[in-house]
């Protein structure tokens, strides 16, 4: 057990349980993410990795277990109202950004408006400031030319980069990425992963659910392998990918790397 420094881990999950009806999706997951760490979560579909990610910002409030963000307990026990309202929700959503598989851009807003809307409505930033920040972020993800385009006029890769800029505009401490390249045509994957690489290089704390093994190998500080609602093993990429200890990890990697 490592002694935490600098205010402890950015995110700590303890004994997270989540069920959808009769299906137990998460069966007691413990996980720590340190400041500046990039944790890639791998696993077969249905292993609960996306659900785990969505627990961190309470999109899926867990039924059991505790989540700490910057040391603050954001779900006060089972049955709490944390999923609906309360300071926990404000606290976590101001610190944790998320990017979705399906982008979920607001189709009735331009790229720039997508990035400024929450800055103005949630953070109360003046329009000029929000626009300056939004423009800078869109330029940073290579979309300086597309400020006034509507999402339907953008490619999937461009939409996803707008979605990343939109999340970054809220100055999150942690970024969650939920299979952000899975809905993209193969030739568009790289432009999105490059943005993630840059973010990681700048020291952003990231939790990345992905099927991109190559990306995970390059960028992850740690790889977490999940199966059947639990963490099977975790460690540095070299260890988990090249010398997995668990049979299930080996089997999964065999299936993914074969093709």
């Amino acid at each position, binding site marked *: 057990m490592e002694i935490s420094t600098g205010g402890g881990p950015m995110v700590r999950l303890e004994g997270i349980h989540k069920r959808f009806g009769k299906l137990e999706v998460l069966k007691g997951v413990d996980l720590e993410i340190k400041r500046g760490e990039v944790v890639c979560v791998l696993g077969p579909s249905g292993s609960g990795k996306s659900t785990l990610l969505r627990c961190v*910002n309470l*999109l899926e409030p867990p039924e059991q277990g505790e989540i700490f963000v910057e040391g603050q307990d954001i779900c006060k026990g089972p049955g709490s*109202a944390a999923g*609906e*309202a309360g300071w926990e929700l*404000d606290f976590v*959503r*101001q610190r*944790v*950004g*998320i990017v*979705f598989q*399906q*982008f*979920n*851009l*607001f*189709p*009735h807003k331009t790229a720039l408006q997508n990035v400024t*809307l*929450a800055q103005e*409505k*949630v*953070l109360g930033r003046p329009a000029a400031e929000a626009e300056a920040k939004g423009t800078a972020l869109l330029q940073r993800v290579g979309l300086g030319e597309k400020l006034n385009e509507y*999402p*339907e*006029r953008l*490619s*999937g890769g461009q*939409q996803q980069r707008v*979605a990343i800029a*939109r*999340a970054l505009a*809220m100055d999150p401490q942690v970024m969650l990425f939920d299979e952000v390249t899975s*809905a993209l045509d193969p030739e568009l994957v790289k432009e999105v992963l490059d943005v993630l690489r840059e973010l990681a290089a700048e020291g952003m704390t990231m939790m990345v659910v992905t099927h991109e093994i190559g990306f995970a190998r390059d960028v992850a500080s740690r790889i977490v392998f999940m199966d059947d609602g639990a963490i099977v093993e975790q460690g540095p990429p070299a260890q988990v990918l090249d010398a997995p200890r668990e049979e299930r990890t080996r089997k999964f990697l065999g299936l993914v790397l074969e093709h």
Partner: protein
Amino acid sequence: MQELIDQYFDVGFMADHFDEVLEGFWFTIQLSVVAGVLALIWGLVLAQLRQLPGRGFAPVRFLTVAYIDVFRGVPLLIMILLISGSIPALDFLPEWLRLPQWFGKPDNFWFGVLAITVTYGAYMAEVYRSGIEAVPQGQMEAARSLGMNHRQAMRNVIVPQAVRKVFAPLLNDFIALMKDTTLVSAIALSEVALVGRDLQSQFLNSSGLVLGAIMFLVVTLPLARLVDKLIAREQGRFTRGAPRVEAL
């Protein structure tokens, strides 16, 4: 044959009474626009009340659903008679409410507006609801993840998209509302149907009513075509293929 033409399409008769009928129709338009705008607003309020999240708002949701069911189930004519015949008798109400004469319109105009608004608000609430439910779940999730509360998310993200989706069906409801304003003739408001009816009983000639019907068509036919166009465009956007998040 001539008899039929004289009864329904007597052009001379129509010309003689054109101004009266037009005045009645103008009244109908005013009633439709005022009640239509209010019903659009009231329907949106109802639809949003119905979507309030959480256990605490369960009674609000229940009452809203009950309201919508009741007012969709009661004939507009009964609402008109009920409201216009009862409110003036409610002595505890101040006179400006009991016998409203706002903007130079008679009290029955406002009772008609109220009856149409409360009835059509219920219809429109259902249309809005279908639009709200047609906005993908991911939109709410994205808005909430950016820190918006439910109200901000509805207002800035969900409702603007929902309204775009249901613009055509709302316009359809507006056409129906416009036609239904003729029911206020039952409370002696000299709108187009009553004017036509009076001409009919006075001269035993229906051409005045036909003229009123034609005036309706002049307005409703273009509106109906517009609805068709909007629907076709919405479907075109959906199928033509630029990658749309909603299509996924």
